[in-house]
Each structure stands twice: as C-alpha cells, then as structure tokens.
C-alpha cells in the first residue's frame, strides 16, 4: 500500500501535479489506486466519503453551506499496472453560499489495457462555485479507455468551471460527455484540450442548457490530432431564457492523415437570448508558421510552438 502510494505520487508529479500538496494539512486530498483508497485528508466545511467497490470507488462529496474551501482539493486517481479497470462514481453537492476548487490528476503511466470510467452527478446550490480541473497523464502504449460522464445542475447566481486536459502520453480511446443546466444569473465555462496521435480516437460531447435568466455559457475545445488519430467534437449550447448568452469556440488542428469533425449545435428558443459559435478545422495557419520561421525557427519547431500554445 505504501509502495503504491509512493508510485502514485511519482506519477502524479510526472503529470504536472505537486506532491507537496499531499503533505499539507490545509489541503484536502484523496488518492485512489484502482479500487483502493490509499490516502485521504479532509478540511473543515468539506465532507468527502469514499467507498470502495468491486471495480472502483464511490465518492460522496459535500461542501457545506457557507463553506469556502480555501485551497484546491487534490484528487489523484490511477491504475499503475498494465491492465485494470477503475470506475469512479462521484456524487457532489455544493450547498448554498459555498465554493470549492478541485484539481484531479488521473495517471495511467503503464497502461496497455486500462479502462477508466467516471460518472459524476453534481449539484451546485445558489451563490456558489464549483471548479473542476482534470489533468490526465497516460503512458505511450495507447491502451487506455477514458470515459468521463457528468451531469451538472447549477443553481442561481453560481459559477461552474470545468477544465479537462490530456496532453501527456497517448490518448487511446476517449469519450467525454458532460451535460449541464444553468439557472438564473449563473455561468458555465467548459474547456477541453487534447493532443491525439497514432491511432487515438477522441469523442467529446459537451452541452450547456442556459435555462435561467441572464445565464452565461462558454464551451471551448482545443484538439490537435496527427498521424492517424481521429476526433469528433459535439458542442451544444441551448439558450431558452431571457438574456441568456452563450458562445461555442472549437478549434481542431490536423496533421498527417488525421481526421477531425466538429458539430456545433446552437439552439435558441427565447427572442432575447443569443448564442454564437466559431469552429475551425485545418492545419496550422500558414501565416503563423511563416511569422515564426521569419524569426529563424525551422518549420517543425514553428508548428510545435503554435500547437503547444493552443493547448496551453
């Protein structure tokens, strides 16, 4: 168990996380290897109850009314062996007048045949915020299936932010599906950044339903695919209330034999609501490349710089 904990934190550090956070008593954390909880720590205002199941962990997370969790809650999920399955079911409730920021690192450094599923059901109260940042670190075999699903409801005067990035190692198979409902004067901001190559497969579906007055939504995707990788992005924003405003912003860059597809769905059913979208698929802009080459960069380095900036 101690050895697993150490390896998990090593992988966590390699994924860009800061293992010192796990030693800090002011920072809440949870470390799960396969279906074993191997580290946990709570702070005041936060209830976090993990329960081990046959294939993963069920997590019940509550941020108590009026509690603002000062430091990001650090989560580390992973499977260290070459094969395995991990199913994480999260039920999160952020009560009124409260807020929390979560920083999850999911590490599968040796995966040859690993499945990681996450099912989240998240309820955000009024005058509250919930920010969920998920960073993945995969090995180079491409043997990971990542299937995150989330249903999120956001109350009045609240804020939801999700950031997902998978930039280190092979993607493998990725199928994300987030769906959210936003009430009055609340906002949603969802961002996904992924770099796929070889024969990686990427499917992203993010939806925001702006059903509250003056609700706001931004769905942003940045995906780069090269070699024989393929991506399909469905970004959907529905605005059905007075003064609801939304924007979908999707950029996919393809290199080599890669294929990319973007399907922005914009649905407005109230005359005082407005949703805009922009989507671009193609290779890196020639002007950007030539600008950097005119400073002395080789073409390949210029492309890398543009792509890494886009995914930053």
């Amino acid at each position, binding site marked *: 168990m101690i050895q697993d904990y150490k390896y998990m934190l090593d992988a966590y550090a390699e994924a860009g996380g800061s293992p010192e956070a796990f030693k800090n008593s002011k920072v809440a954390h949870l470390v799960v290897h396969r279906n074993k909880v191997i580290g946990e720590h709570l702070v005041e205002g936060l209830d976090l109850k993990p329960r081990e199941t046959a294939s993963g962990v069920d997590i019940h997370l509550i941020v108590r009314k009026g509690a603002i969790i000062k430091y990001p809650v650090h989560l580390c999920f992973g499977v260290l062996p070459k094969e395995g399955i991990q199913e994480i079911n999260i039920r999160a409730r952020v009560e009124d007048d409260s807020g929390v920021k979560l920083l999850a690192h999911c590490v599968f450094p040796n995966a040859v045949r690993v499945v990681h599923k996450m099912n989240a059901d998240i309820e955000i109260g009024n005058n509250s915020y919930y920010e969920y940042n998920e960073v993945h670190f995969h090995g180079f075999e491409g043997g990971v299936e990542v299937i995150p699903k989330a249903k999120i409801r956001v109350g009045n005067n609240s804020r939801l932010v999700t950031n997902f990035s998978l930039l280190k190692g092979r993607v493998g198979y990725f199928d994300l599906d987030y769906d959210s409902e936003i009430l009055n004067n609340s906002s949603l901001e969802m961002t996904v950044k992924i770099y796929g190559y070889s024969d990686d497969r990427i499917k992203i579906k993010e939806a925001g339903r702006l059903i509250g007055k003056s609700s706001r939504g931004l769905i942003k995707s940045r995906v780069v695919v090269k070699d024989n990788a393929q991506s399909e992005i469905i970004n959907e924003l529905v605005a059905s209330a007075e003064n609801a405003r939304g924007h979908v912003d999707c950029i996919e860059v393809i290199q080599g034999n890669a294929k990319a597809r973007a399907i922005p769905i914009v649905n407005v059913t109230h005359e005082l609501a407005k949703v805009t979208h922009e989507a671009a698929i193609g290779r890196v802009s*020639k002007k950007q490349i*030539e600008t950097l*080459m005119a*400073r002395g960069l080789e073409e390949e380095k210029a492309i890398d710089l543009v792509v890494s900036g886009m995914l930053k």
Partner: protein
Amino acid sequence: MELLRVEKLSLNLEGRQILKDLSLSVKSGTIHSILGPNAAGKSSLAYVLIGCCDYNPQCGKIYFLGKDITGYPIQKRAKIGITLAWQEPARFEGLNVKDYISVGMREKKPGLIEESLYHVLLEPKEYLDRGVDKTLSGGERKRIELAAVFAMRPRLVILDEPDSGIDILALDNIVNMIKELRRQGTTVLLITHREEVAEIADKTSLMCSGFIVKEGTPEEVGKYFKEKCIPCPTHLYPEEKDKGKIKEKNDTRL
C-alpha cells in the same frame, strides 16, 4: 556597401503579374523606403524578399551580401539576418509577448525584451505576460511586432507599413525606433504608401504596378509621388488599368 540587390524580379500570382522586372539595390546601414500606392506590389515584394512559400518569383535574382539567396527558404533567410515585420501580424493563442519576442532573439541579452517594448511605447510590466492573441488591439499587436524585430537585431528588416494601425501619438516613437535600428546597424527596408513616413529614409524607391518607377531622395520622390502618382488614374483604379481600360501615361510612370 550593397547589402541587398534585386535583379529583374518577376512574380505572377493566379495569372496576374504582380512584380515586373523589378530591380533594386539597398545599401548597408541605411533606411531605404519603398513608396507606392495601394496595389503597387509593395507587400508582395516583401513576401518575395523574405521567402514566403507562395511567393516564388518566376524569374530574377535576389542577392544578399553578394550571395544569391533566391532559392533560400524563409528560415534560412532569417538565420542570415533577414526578417519581416508584417503589415497585419498573426496572432497566437497561448503564446505570451515575452516568449514571442524571444523567439527571434539571437542573443538573450537581459533587459532587451523590456527595452524593445519601451521603444514602441508599451509598458513591459503590463505586456510581458499578455497573450499575443485576439485580446490585443490591432495597434498593440503591431507595436509588439515591431518590438520583436527590434529585439532580433537583424541585418535587414523589412517593415511593411509600420505606421498602419498606430495612433498619431505613438508615431514619433515608431519613427525613432526605426532610426535606432539603423543606428544599431540594422538596414531597414521601409514599405509605405505615405510620403511623410518615407521621408525618414536615406533613399526612396517609388513603386507602381510592380515596377520601380523612380528613385532618389525622399524629398524628390515624395514630390513626384504627390504631383504625379496621387492624381494618376492607375493609382485610383488599378483593376481598370489591368483590364486595359485606362491607358498608362509614360509621363506619370517614368
């Protein structure tokens, strides 16, 4: 000493002749302005000189310090000291001003990035960490482009309409920066359609319809431009001229 020599350069793009037997000589350590109306081919000349991939001349030669560089790709030209500040510079998501400027710097001299920003009237503290993206106004992006070539310390910089999008208050600083480039040993090829900008040059070449039609001091060429080129229908209706609807008048062209 001659730094750049262009001999009988011709460029056709999509069936249209953009540059026609154009020849030019630029002396080292000078500011040489290329003055001309819109659609004269000035920016195309800049793209040919820098080596943009869609701007391969059908004939003619480009010499840099006596060496034929006509076949050099863009990055090789940059490495021997030729660069371009674009009229409408590209924007880069996720790349900040500090990193963008440092891309071309051959010597990582401390304080050079900040100095470059001061020269274009941008406060480094405010701009170093900002993205070179769509959050910048056109004028800010333009100034950052000029700061980037300043920090690069090239042997030859082509400035394509450096004053466009720059407010009148900052124009003097841009002019001073161009002079500072020359003082530091960079030769400047200054492309403009405004004779008052061309005035800061040591020598001016007047360009029209893909030709160099006159060369001389900025005063001589500026006077000619005002008197002959501005009223000329070739300038006012370049497309009509191309279709042969307006006859070229020798006295206004040569």
